[in-house]
Each structure stands twice: as C-alpha cells, then as structure tokens.
C-alpha cells in the first residue's frame, strides 16, 4: 500500500482530525515523510487541515468502505 493510500485509510477509519505524529505512528512512518505527503494531499483536497491536525478532505469522502475492509 502506498503512503498516500495508507494516510487516507487512517484518516477515514478514525474519522476525526489527528496530528502528524499519530498518523506517522499508525502507518509506521516518520513525521517528516508524512508531513511532506500531507502537503501534496492537502493541495488535492484529499485531506484538510484543522488547526495543527489533519482530517479527511472532501475529495476522499466517498470511498469509506475501502478503509473498513483494508484492501
């Protein structure tokens, strides 16, 4: 699973804003790598920033089942 998909899966599953450190922990990556990827996802409106945290963006909201079954 690539990094973007892993990040989106985590955000979809939790369905609440979470910090970069927690996202990095959950996908077993590092904050620097995740932050870099979040910026790209943010530009594509796949994630949105809520203060210092991130949540799922409008463009990614329609694929919720994918995260439940993890494929």
């Amino acid at each position, binding site marked *: 699973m690539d990094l973007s998909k892993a990040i989106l899966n985590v955000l979809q599953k939790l369905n609440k804003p979470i910090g970069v450190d927690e996202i990095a*922990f959950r996908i*077993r990556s*590092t904050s*620097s*790598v995740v932050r870099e990827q979040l910026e790209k996802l943010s530009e594509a409106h796949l994630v949105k920033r809520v203060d210092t945290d991130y949540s799922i963006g409008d463009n990614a909201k329609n*694929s919720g089942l*994918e995260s*439940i*079954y993890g494929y």
Partner: protein
Amino acid sequence: MKEYINSYFAAFISACFISYFRVYSSDKFHNYFFLIIIDWFLVLNCIIYGCISIALLYLLKDNVVSIPVNNTQLSHYLYPVGIGIITKGVADVNFFNVKTDGFSIPIGLKTFTQPLDKFFEEKFDGVCFEKSKVYMEAYLIKYRHELLTSYCNDIRRFKAAIILKLNSFHPDKKKTTEFESSLNFTKAISVDETLVLVLREFGPTIFNSIFPL
C-alpha cells in the same frame, strides 16, 4: 457436567493464549508489545476469541474430528485444546472475495472477523501511540539535549553514532544496513523521529542499550 465445563475451559484458555501470542508475534506490534501487555483491549480480544472457541467446540461437539484416545487425563483434553488452537484459523476461513471498484469484501467467517481484527488493531495502535509518548518523554529530553551538546546540533552525526551503536548491539548486521538505508531513517531530521524509529524497528531492549537514561 464438570467434564464439559473443563473441556470448554480448556478450549477457551488455549484460544486466549493463541490470540495473545498472535498479537505478540505480529510484525506490527511485536516491538510495542511491552506497552499493551496488560491492556484491556488485548484482554478483550483474547476473551472474544476464547468465546468463539467455546461456540466452535459446542458446534463441533464430539466425533467430528476423532483423536485416538487412550485413557489418560491428558488425552481427554486434546480435542478441546486442539479446537482452541485452530479457532483463529477457522475464524479466518474465506471462501472468496467480492470485489468492486474500490474495495473487496471477504465472504466466509472472515466477513465477521476481519472488521473485528481491524477494530482491535486500530485500538492497539491508539493505546501504543499514547503510551509510547509517555515512555519516550524522558529519552527525548535527554537526547535532544545531547544532540545540542555532544553533536553540535548535527543530526547526521547523531544518526551516524546510532548506526555505530546498532552495529555493536544488534547481532543482525543485515537488518542494521537495511535500517540505515531505509527512506524513513534517511529522511529523519530530528531526534524524536530517530528515537521513535529505533524503538519501532529494534524493540525496547536494543533501544535501552543504545539510549541509556
């Protein structure tokens, strides 16, 4: 009656043990297992699989699988213990997957156990994250200070020192080499990230050897 209760108890305990061991030996949680060793979610996970094994033993009853029995007390418990051990495997039975554009749903007993496993995985991650923050706090304070004083705030020198220590403390040189060249390690730009990575990849024993308090 007492015999039945003992059989169900044997199946329950063996399924609990296997469930506990599965989490312990999983790639994802092995190095963080010390943080969830007595966590309620882990206990609940074991109890659920213990209960599934009781249901399985009840459904299979006797004679579905025959074990040649001699008259010892031990052989009497072989069947329920065997059921307990195979519970997770049976619960993961997946006949086929229904695939559509974005996702795939397993059809079989896994239809029910996969969301359950995902739920617990997510809970374990949450607990590990919170507890690891507390666990790491003292180490981070000490080694942020050490980066400034002993390594002139040069993260590359700090990381090089870690690799040297890993080579002396960890028996598997190949793993250390892979770690050194991994994307996460090469892109790590702070003490926090580096320490988290070492704990995640090598576990608490190596971590404590490299970063004594």
